[in-house]
């Protein structure tokens, strides 16, 4: 039970800057997810906190204590590894009891904690087995159990679900969320999977190229991405981007994407007025593009001419891969849509939900 703070943290490997001026404050009992593409430095950030890597400069605090020079074992943290890292020669019980034994915890106390954790995770029957006799999901539970019994101040998870199959991943996701509610401890969780981040986190920190891009609640991150990278990373399928220009046309502000022109509704035009005649990137999420015949009520829409390239029926919706001039983009439309491959048609852009980014700084204009 503790807060965690990164203050101006840098980590360099030779010339490579893996973590670039990271500033994050994680509150007590928070579930923070660090998310970003492979090699973005999120795992390094976690390993710095665990003490497995040394900080190049800056400070990391756990519960307001600077831990830069504290050995990993004295930081009162527990980590769950992507590879589980179970001790192959020890039984499941001994795997979970290993850390407690090294800390000279009394025997009865060890037994109590291990049995309790095993019950929480539903692995009571496996305690006498060896790791090699367990399935992937069971091993993952044991790895979590090994962290739980230590009763640490902070739990660290390093992509713990990426070795599991899709079904098991969904199930474990829910269980880790439940575990967080039950333990009421600070969780810091690293993943490259934005779905995991969205479903579990109380806050998400998006990291790219060692830099923190944005940190916010999942909903805010989705609705109000701070820059082009966050907008493209969060959400699946990803947001569609159209390079273009902001232009005044007959007194109205319009987005000129070359192949189509859409006017910005007057009520939303405020922040953009100062950016007229600038190069911008226009972004709109697939679910905000509708089939002409199935437009929800009470939204401002603009018509755009397209050609249907590919259709993917998902059952509850259809993904349309559309071509408009040199732009290709995705729309997520009502399953009743009758658009077919090769057809020339019109789709409707929901002009209540779009994003405009500065073409140079890639920051959101707002």
């Amino acid at each position, binding site marked *: 039970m503790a807060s965690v703070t990164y203050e101006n943290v840098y980590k360099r490997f030779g010339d490579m800057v893996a973590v670039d001026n990271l500033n994050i404050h994680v509150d007590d009992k928070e579930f923070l997810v660090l998310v970003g593409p492979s090699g973005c430095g999120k795992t390094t950030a976690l390993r710095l906190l*665990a*003490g*497995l890597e040394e900080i190049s400069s800056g400070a990391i605090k756990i519960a307001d204590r600077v831990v830069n020079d504290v*050995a*990993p*074992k004295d930081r009162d*943290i*527990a*980590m769950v*590894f*992507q*590879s*589980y*890292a*179970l*001790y*192959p*020669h020890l039984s499941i019980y001994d795997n979970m009891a*290993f*850390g407690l034994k*090294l*800390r000279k915890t009394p025997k009865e106390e060890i037994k109590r904690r291990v049995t309790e954790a095993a019950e929480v995770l539903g692995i009571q029957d496996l305690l006498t087995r*060896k*790791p*090699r*006799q*367990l399935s*992937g999901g069971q*091993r993952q539970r044991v790895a979590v159990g*090994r962290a739980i019994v*230590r009763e640490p101040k902070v739990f660290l998870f390093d992509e713990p679900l990426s*070795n599991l199959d899709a079904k098991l991943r969904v199930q474990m996701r829910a269980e880790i969320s439940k575990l967080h509610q039950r333990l009421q401890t600070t969780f810091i969780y690293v993943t490259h999977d934005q779905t995991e981040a969205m479903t579990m986190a109380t806050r998400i920190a998006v990291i790219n190229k060692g830099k923190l891009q944005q940190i916010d609640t999942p909903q805010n991150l989705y609705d109000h991405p701070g820059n082009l990278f966050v907008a493209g990373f969060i959400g699946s399928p990803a947001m569609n981007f159209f390079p273009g220009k902001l232009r005044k046309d007959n007194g109205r502000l319009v987005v000129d994407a070359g192949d189509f022109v859409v006017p910005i509704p007057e009520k939303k035009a405020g922040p953009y007025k100062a950016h007229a005649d600038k190069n911008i990137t226009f972004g709109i999420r697939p679910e905000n593009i509708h089939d002409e015949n199935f437009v929800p009520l009470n939204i401002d829409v603009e018509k755009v001419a397209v050609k249907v390239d590919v259709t993917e029926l998902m059952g509850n919706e259809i993904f349309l891969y559309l071509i408009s001039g040199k732009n290709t983009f995705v729309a997520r439309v009502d399953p009743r849509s009758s658009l077919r491959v090769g057809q020339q048609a019109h789709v409707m852009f929901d002009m209540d939900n779009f994003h405009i980014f500065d073409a140079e700084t890639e920051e959101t204009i707002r």
Partner: protein
Amino acid sequence: MNRDRVNRILARIPTHLIVIGTILIWVIPTLGLLITSFRPVQDVNTSGWWTVVAPQNVSGPYVQYCASCHGADGKAIPEADLSDPNLIARYPRSLQLMAILRQDINGKPHMGDVPLPTSQEAADIAAYLRNYSSGQAGTARFTTSNYVDALVGYRGRASYFQDCREGTQALDLKCNASDLLNPRGMGRAFLNSLLVTIPATVLPILFAAFAGYAFAWLHFKGRFLLFAILVGLQVVPLQMTLVPISRIYAQLGLNGTFLGVWLFHTGFGLPYAIYLMRNFLGSLPSDLFEAAYLDGASHWTAFRRLVIPLAMPAIASLGIFQFLWVWNDLLVALVFLGGTTPVMTYQISNMVTSLGAGWHLLTAAAFLSMLLPMVVFFSLQRYFVRGMMAGAVKG
């Protein structure tokens, strides 16, 4: 489908032939040595070990040369009764037999008109008469006296038990269990070999495990250079260092001591042992060690609780190699221990006299020295097969 199967079988024939051939090449001489080691010295000297499997029909030359006068049962001439063991004992070899055949009997040639047998035929006749007179013609004889003789270091003409029965044993033999520790025998040499081999196997493995862990998991400056130098030391031939080390040992008073041999074997075992241990430990997943450090393990705890159990396959294979190498080493033991505390290899090399006699003892001694390596190999070999790492990480 049937043709496919025939083709598959045909395609495997060369492989099978080569495998079977290789096995035969190794097994047949070994089998010969094993059989020889159980044959009485007289049989070893007169006939090949394969005659055990198919007893030689050596009565042919006897029938051809002797039966006409001495009779089929050898009793035709009473004053020269060939079924009498005492008479036959005077002609143990073809040479003695040829000598009597060349002598005249009552002024006439022994053989009359019949030409003299060749020396091979004479040897066959002598062997046949010996077996026949002792009532064992055509049967293979086995004895364990070679092993006993080798164990107690018996060097006489008959056998240890026979000498003891007759009270004609050498001065250093007491004819009781204490003879097993006779300094000239393989029994004592076995103990000496154990005393040399066990520390000379344990020490390098222990040091190599420490060094392998350090090279693999401790981050210190220059470790790659140091490791490269250590591994490079393997090119130094052992023979080159015998003289300088022997001089150093002379100054330190280590010549002829077990400590000297232990240190020598440890030194020359280490480069390869470190190389093997480092590569094995380096291939363990780093997550395991990081998990242990987070669990509160120091380097020492990680070494004791993680590395030693996980490195058992490497330790076992290293143990087998180092054990066999030290156990079978003659040169180092000869130079630094010599005859004062002889090891088995030294003793074996002393079994055969300069005239080549005594190799019935040699075969027995060789099998005595093979016993322990076999036990070691078969008790540790399961570690080669079993994958210890299964279940550690996602697999």
